């Protein structure tokens, strides 16, 4: 009797085991909580996920976005990670944060997963190398270093993130003002060069002309502008000059790189120095040029509070003719309920520095954000999160995202013939993305950034000169980076 029970039990267990083995993996209820800044590109991701995502593994997957306002985004994410609450499975992160949170043990190294998965490898190979360099590698590898390796994934490179929203800055301008015949003729008379009206005109616009535009369009209330009498003061140009976060560094770095200067280069640690580089004569001249155009900008520039949101606001109020701002802030400009210039705006590449051969260098500091996975996820959640990555970076999803205020970092998608027509800034974005570099990724980035922003702010508000500011930045960075072991 006992033997019969044992045999029937074993047979039952065998049948059960065989049954499970024959069916696909069991479907599970998986919730992926993602920390995300609250703005259109992430809102769309959530909407589109809910409408279209189907788990290839058959799971019931919920993407639970924790939308956090931009001004407190870093603090909220950092507080969550360092408190150990392990709330998030995925995080939309600024590229500068990679070092701080990789070293803290919070962001997952995806290198082995990418190498083991041909689909992820293909995505990485299709991503623009400037984005891979900025958004994914830690310790940081420059685009040149990655391209020298000749293979993707590169040997010895650690990959962490994929683009959630690759951003670049472009020129937003008032077509009704810049293409007004009277204004164009007056500009030509005054400066002997054309006022940029078409996209091609902006391709040929350098910083000198940017300054001329600023001077030309500085008008008082009661003056004429494009055939109409102004009710308020009007300004020709604005770019970021804010004390908060990185709201002047992003623009100033562009000037420094375009002139041939550099910031402290973490990819060359421990040999790269801060002193002598950060405050080189070239860097000082570049910073001086950046400062020289502030006089033509709205007076808020004098307070050091002209950040990316302030210039967007002033532009939407019709008080500025042209601004240089992130593509991610373009959507509200076209919204009739928010913008007085929704039907008058056009977009072009950002100005740059003219080189000896007549070409224009537009090197700039990349914006946007990658998303990463966290280290405490189970294998099941990691696999499903990577399925979400594949879904987001699939062709159809990327085209849908781009049509709804997002951008793609996939070269195959950007090469699509319909891409440039999906949104009015896409052509400029595709042109600008090739010029992008990134600021530091080391764990001490926030301290480096804050001190630099303070010194830049002193120069922007006229308390000190460009040389004094860069000398102070270089001295501080040299000391901090030596203490931290990044400079020998």
């Amino acid at each position, binding site marked *: 009797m006992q033997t019969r029970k044992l045999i029937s039990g074993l047979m039952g267990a065998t049948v059960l085991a065989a049954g499970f083995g024959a069916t696909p993996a069991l479907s599970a209820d998986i919730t992926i909580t993602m920390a995300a800044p609250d703005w259109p590109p992430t809102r769309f991701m959530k909407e589109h996920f809910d409408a279209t995502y189907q788990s290839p593994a058959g799971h019931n997957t919920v993407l639970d976005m924790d939308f956090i306002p931009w001004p407190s985004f870093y603090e909220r994410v950092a507080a969550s990670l360092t408190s150990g609450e392990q709330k998030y499975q995925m995080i939309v992160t600024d590229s500068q944060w990679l070092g701080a949170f990789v*070293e803290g043990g919070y962001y997952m190294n995806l290198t082995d997963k990418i190498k083991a998965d041909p689909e992820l490898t293909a995505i990485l190979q299709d991503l623009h190398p400037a984005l891979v360099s900025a958004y994914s590698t830690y310790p940081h590898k420059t685009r040149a270093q990655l391209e020298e390796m000749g293979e993707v994934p590169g040997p010895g490179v650690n990959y962490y993130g994929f683009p959630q929203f690759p951003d670049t800055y472009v020129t937003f301008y008032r077509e009704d003002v810049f293409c007004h015949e009277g204004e164009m003729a007056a500009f030509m008379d005054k400066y002997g060069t054309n006022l940029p009206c078409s996209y091609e005109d902006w391709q040929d616009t350098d910083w000198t002309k940017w300054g001329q535009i600023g001077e030309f369009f500085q008008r008082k209330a009661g003056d004429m502008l494009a055939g109409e009498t102004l009710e308020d003061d009007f300004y020709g140009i604005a770019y970021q000059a804010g004390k908060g976060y990185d709201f002047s560094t992003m623009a100033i770095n562009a000037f420094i790189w375009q002139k041939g200067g550099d910031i402290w280069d973490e990819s060359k640690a421990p040999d790269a120095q801060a002193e002598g580089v950060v405050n080189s004569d070239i860097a000082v001249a570049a910073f001086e040029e950046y400062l020289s155009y502030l006089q033509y900008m*709205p007076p808020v520039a004098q*307070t050091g509070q002209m950040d990316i949101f302030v210039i967007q606001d002033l532009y939407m109020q019709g008080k500025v003719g042209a601004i240089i701002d992130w593509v991610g802030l373009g959507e509200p400009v076209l919204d009739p309920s928010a913008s007085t210039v929704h039907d008058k705006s056009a977009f072009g590449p950002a100005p740059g520095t003219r080189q000896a051969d007549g070409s224009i260098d537009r090197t700039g500091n990349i914006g946007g954000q990658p998303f990463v996975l966290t280290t405490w996820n189970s294998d099941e959640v990691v696999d499903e999160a990577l399925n979400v990555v594949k879904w987001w970076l699939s062709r159809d999803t990327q085209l849908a995202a781009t049509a709804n205020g997002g951008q793609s970092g996939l070269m195959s998608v950007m090469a699509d013939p319909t891409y440039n027509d999906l949104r009015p800034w896409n052509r400029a974005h595709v042109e600008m993305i090739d010029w992008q570099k990134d600021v530091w990724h080391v764990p001490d980035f926030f301290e480096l950034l804050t001190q630099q922003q303070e010194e830049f702010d002193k120069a922007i508000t006229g308390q000190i000169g460009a040389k004094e500011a860069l000398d102070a930045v270089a001295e501080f960075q040299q000391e901090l980076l030596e203490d931290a072991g990044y400079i020998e």
Partner: protein
Amino acid sequence: MADAAGRQGGFGAWLLDPKRRGALLVTPAITILFVMNIFPLLWSFGLSFFNYRANRLNVPSFRGLSNYERVLTDDKVWERFQTTAIIVGSSVLLQLIIGFLLALLFAKEFPLRRIVLMLVLTPMMLSFVSVGVFFKLFYEPTFGIVSYVMNMFTDDAFVTLATPAGAIAGIVIADAWMWSPFVMLLVLAGLVSVPKYLYEAAEIDRASAWRRFWTITFPYIKSLLLLAILFRTIETFKLFDIVYIITEGGPGSSTETIAVFLYRNAFQFFKTSQSSALAYIVLFIVIVLTNLYLYAVNRRAQETG
């Protein structure tokens, strides 16, 4: 026999015994106080002797008093204390002057007094963030009301926050706007407590207005004024929200108070141990000020008692 009663009443009766009821009632409050205040205080005090950073995996090592030494020898810290002192001194002085004048106004009866009084009290009921945003917009040079009004007298936009002095003034005005009504309430309480017969007697003696104020009014309000000074000094010493919203500490670092500096070190730079040491130094200063405040309260109690 007692055992038998205890057994009959069970655990509930034992717990609710009048001998234990007091302890039972305060236990939840003590527990919350310990978990939310005392434990974090002790923990951060311990951290201030290590080299711990919350965003690193490194095992903390004991550093003794070196964090305190580093903080106290850091020029930046002393600059921030200096900025804080300037803002505290200016703001509290302005609050005292405005609060005192408002109290003199509201000590008298006039039409719609109650409604006007209620409106004057509104600023101190608002959140710091709202006040910060209001004033940031007031000071905005392109469309802000300050620049708009000043434009009537000057041709150029008036840029309040462009200089360190202007930015400090901007913060002081916002803080004083918010908290002068609080000073007014305290002073008003003193003014209405002065017996009317003293003024009548002074009038018969033909005492001058100044003499009446100095010998009758001031003795009644002086301890309340001291309370107002101490209370507002303690609060303004911790000023964070308004500064962070209006100037973010700028231009440069000219309006960065010690509270903003502490926040940056703790939650942006993750210098956890070093910021704990600084927090304890700030706490020590606040405790000294609080003891002065308690001394003033006791003195006031003795005077009125």
